[in-house]
């Protein structure tokens, strides 16, 4: 068995406000193996982005804090690392792609310079400027942009092209781990398809591991190997894509997510939304955090941690599976 490239254990992250504490991530654990893509799926406030920022150690200073747990990158503990040490890891080993390509690029720098900059920062083996410039051309070509456009400014590119440039910057130093935070949400469907296909190809070519943060189950089906469904800062269901899309055993929340989607194949008179709302992360319900919205809620769900069901790596965090039946 290969060593995991990233191992997160029992991660707890909070945002300490003036009057209240927001419990954003509550005990997330997962492992990511080389060349694997894990999808973190969930709705707004599920703690997906906070998990990513915890890995990068980019939580807002003084407010965001990791209170418990460990994040191991290749056996190296990231929690508690100093900013200077993290700078050596960020960009070079772990890169992040943000949601909005329109604001992720500096409008007064040419795209070539922006890629060059990220190469220069992590230029540990003192490559010459010429070599670095060649690498810039190579990277642009890799993401499907003609190298002669490197002297142009971000506003001269369309949204999809900008996201390609953002990807090129993220991949500049050949990171082992790429965190993509909703990389295609701001793009149109046809462009989204192009970018997803590109990311898939690049991942195969470069052997990068990836954490894909998304709310779109369609994107998950396209890109991921493993899936973690998140709700209120916890992983409620974890498994391979086959487990999530093909198995008939699911957490009620996962089931609700699938049922709420309007289908392209069959016609439904009414959609089946999940009743109620996301809980307030500053004031989480006791027991299973999904219990106030769960149609199968029982007495034992209201208190204590829900049962952890496991079957060949498919983990479901729900009391329904306590007796082994659905």
């Amino acid at each position, binding site marked *: 068995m290969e060593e995991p490239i990233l191992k997160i254990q029992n991660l707890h992250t909070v945002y300490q406000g*003036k*009057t209240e504490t927001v419990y954003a991530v509550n005990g997330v654990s997962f492992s990511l193996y080389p060349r694997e893509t894990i999808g973190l799926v969930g709705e707004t406030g599920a703690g997906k982005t906070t998990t990513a920022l915890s890995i990068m150690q980019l939580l807002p200073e003084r407010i965001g804090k990791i209170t418990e747990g460990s994040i191991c990158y290749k056996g190296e503990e990231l929690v508690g690392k100093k900013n200077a040490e993290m700078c050596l890891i960020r960009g070079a080993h772990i890169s992040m792609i943000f949601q909005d390509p329109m604001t992720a690029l500096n409008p007064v720098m040419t795209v070539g310079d922006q890629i060059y900059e990220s190469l220069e920062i992590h230029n540990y083996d003192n490559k010459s400027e010429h070599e670095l410039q060649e690498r810039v051309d190579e990277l642009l070509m890799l993401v499907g942009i003609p190298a002669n456009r490197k002297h142009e400014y971000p506003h001269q590119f369309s949204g999809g092209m900008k996201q390609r440039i953002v990807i090129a910057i993220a991949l500049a130093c050949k990171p082992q781990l790429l965190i993509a935070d909703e990389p295609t949400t701001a793009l149109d469907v046809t462009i989204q398809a192009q970018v997803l296909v590109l990311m898939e190809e690049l991942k195969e070519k470069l052997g990068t591991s990836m954490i894909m943060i998304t709310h779109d189950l369609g994107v998950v089906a396209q890109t991921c190997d493993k899936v973690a469904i998140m709700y209120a800062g916890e992983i409620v269901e974890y498994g391979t894509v086959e487990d999530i899309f093909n198995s008939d055993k699911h957490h009620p929340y996962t089931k609700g997510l699938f049922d709420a989607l309007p289908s392209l194949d069959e016609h439904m008179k009414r959609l089946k939304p999940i*009743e*109620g709302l996301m809980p307030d992360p500053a004031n989480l319900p006791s027991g299973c955090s999904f219990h106030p919205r769960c149609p199968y809620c029982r007495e034992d769900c209201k208190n204590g941690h829900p049962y952890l069901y496991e079957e060949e790596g498919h983990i479901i965090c729900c009391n329904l599976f306590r007796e082994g039946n659905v």
Partner: protein
Amino acid sequence: MGKMQLKDSEKSLVIKKKGQAGEIWRRFKRNKIAMFGMVLFIAILLVVIFADFIVSYDVALKQEISQRLQPPSSEHLFGTDNFGRDIFARIIHGSRNSLLVGIGAVAIGITIGGLLGAIAGFYGRHLDNIIVRAMDTIMCIPLMLLVLSIVAALGASMVNVLLAMMIANVPQYTRIVRAAILPVVGQDYIEAAKSCGTPNRWIIIQHVIPNAIGPIIVQATMAVGTMIINAAGISFLGMGIQPPTPEWGAMLNEAKNFMISQPYTVVFPGVAIGLTALSLNLMGDGLRDALDPKLKD
């Protein structure tokens, strides 16, 4: 979902009045610094109103050459100036003119400038172009020069100085208000209001101005101090408030030759201007926050 909660909340269904003066006051009250500013300002206002009861106006004008440039003592609380006039009395009685010029110029300037800026920002296109270009043209002329020309043309008097400063102020407020309004005009709720038939004047009053008022209030409160100083400059050039009428800015100007040897002659009027500006500024800051329902906690 809605129906279930309907019953238990029926008794408590009280609609809060528009504007929510009480709510704003409650939020304002919680801001200690803003409250301090308000208390200070009220104190200054009381001085303005009851100046005659504190010390008679004659004292402020009485020149006693033998008593000139006396340091503060029990007889002359803030000392005397180079004509032997009691500085304390002059500050008390100068407050009226100074506040009138400072607050008056800003208030009227901001009303007219704000209206022009709102029209320019809201309607855009040609109207925007015309207003902004016209204002730019006025702004090309240095403020002092403009004020002086206007006062020279109209004749030196307190009212004319006020009028001149007001005119000179309009362009800058037009600019500020327009800049504050532009991002608001692009918001969907403006279009939403249009789509339910709200007339434009209501959209400006109800939707645009309340959402753009923050930076305008802050700018306005900061400008009051500057206006008092500017009015002093005009007085100094002999075109504004005529001596011996007491006025803070004019007092500063007269005393500047004794700044090193008799610092108290500049310190007291300076502090008076500073405190007025400070009180308004703190109050403005607090008011901006209190008007924003998003900053409730």
